[in-house]
């Protein structure tokens, strides 16, 4: 009986030690600098700069880490050319393994065009970028490309719920010296590389889903920045070529339950 008691006590003590060390390590983590102002300042400088640009164009190379049904990791690549003209004109062309799509918004009408399928859909949505993004998402589940770059006030959006921010160091992206920033919020970690001299433009984004064990990321490398492109307004208006069919956007919730 005595031995049993002793063993029991020893086992519980061991458990207790484990528990205490868990608490102790949690405390150490909590003491680490949570949000480094050096990192948030650089992010703010970037978003302010982007928000202040009247026109810009950029090429993005995007890689999406994916998981096949077989459980194997695979990357899906996609290139997007984007032209923005504030306050409300946007052109984006996306090409990749699975996508061949052009997006137009001229401040009045939004058009989505799939050249290889010879179909397009258009929707009259007057207003600002922010209004259009919201309307398209809520009505059709459509997410306008590069919304993050276009939001005039992206900083609070990016910083929302951020619990950790750090300036990782310097890095070279596409031949440009950058500050490498890391931010963490519940379920998502994101890294941003910002040119460290002259124009504080983003050169690379990595967004990691930390909410699932696979830790999959979306990676976007930006190149060919032009902060004063010569763009005619006609570029933002779609003129349907011969033999192209007009189709519609399905309202959200249509045909639920079958092959999305």
């Amino acid at each position, binding site marked *: 009986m005595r031995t049993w008691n002793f063993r029991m006590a020893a086992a519980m003590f061991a458990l207790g030690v484990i528990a205490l060390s868990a608490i102790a390590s949690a405390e150490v983590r909590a003491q680490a600098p949570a949000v480094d102002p050096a990192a948030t300042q650089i992010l703010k400088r970037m978003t302010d700069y982007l928000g202040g640009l009247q026109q810009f164009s950029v090429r993005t190379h995007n890689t999406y880490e994916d998981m096949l049904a077989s459980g194997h990791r695979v990357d899906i690549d996609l290139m997007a050319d984007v032209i923005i003209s504030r306050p409300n004109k946007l052109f984006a062309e996306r090409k990749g393994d699975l996508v061949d799509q052009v997006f137009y918004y001229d401040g009045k009408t939004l058009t989505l065009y799939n050249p290889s399928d010879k179909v397009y859909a258009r929707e009259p949505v007057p207003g600002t970028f922010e209004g259009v993004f919201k309307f398209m998402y809520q009505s059709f589940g459509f*997410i306008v490309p590069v919304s993050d770059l276009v939001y005039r006030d992206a900083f609070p959006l990016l910083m929302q719920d951020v619990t950790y921010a750090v300036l990782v160091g310097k890095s070279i992206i596409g031949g440009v010296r950058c500050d490498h920033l890391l931010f963490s919020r*519940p*379920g998502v970690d994101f890294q941003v590389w910002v040119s460290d001299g002259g124009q504080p433009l983003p050169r690379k984004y990595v*967004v990691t889903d930390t909410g699932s064990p696979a830790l999959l990321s979306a990676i976007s490398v930006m190149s060919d920045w032009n902060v004063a492109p010569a763009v005619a307004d006609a570029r933002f208006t779609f003129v349907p070529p011969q033999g192209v069919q007009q189709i519609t*956007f399905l309202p959200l919730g249509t045909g639920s339950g079958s*092959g999305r």
Partner: protein
Amino acid sequence: MKTMLKISVVASALALMLIADIPLLSEQLVPEAHAILGVRRRTAVVAGATVHAADEAQISASQQQAAAANQQAAAAKQQAADAEKQAAAAKQQAAAAPPAPPPAASGKPLPLGTVVSTLPAGCTSTPVGGVDYFYCGGNFYRAAFQGSNLVYVTAQPK
């Protein structure tokens, strides 16, 4: 010895609380991960069906996890499993594997407004009133965008 026992009991209780907290925590965090600028939005920004499908698979996986942890009703699990099945189907199609024949292949007419991500094999293009319909298996389909994905919807030609 008695004091030590007491301490260790308290400490183990704390350890249990820490462990017990984890599923609850993850359940709260999961929706947020996709709600905001998160991966869901970002992947959906540019990519088509595949990335979207992967995303959904992730969501459903974590839902399943949370459901199991909380021993919730089987309904939630069923939902997650459905979403996963759906995601897997979309992925299969996106990965350019031979598409699984939609129910239409059986020749039974589908309810109007049924959405499929690929046309069944052997559809023929049939213009009606300037609109291209695709006819096969007793159904007319028309093309439409669901989000940024091109899909086909069963319809009655007008």
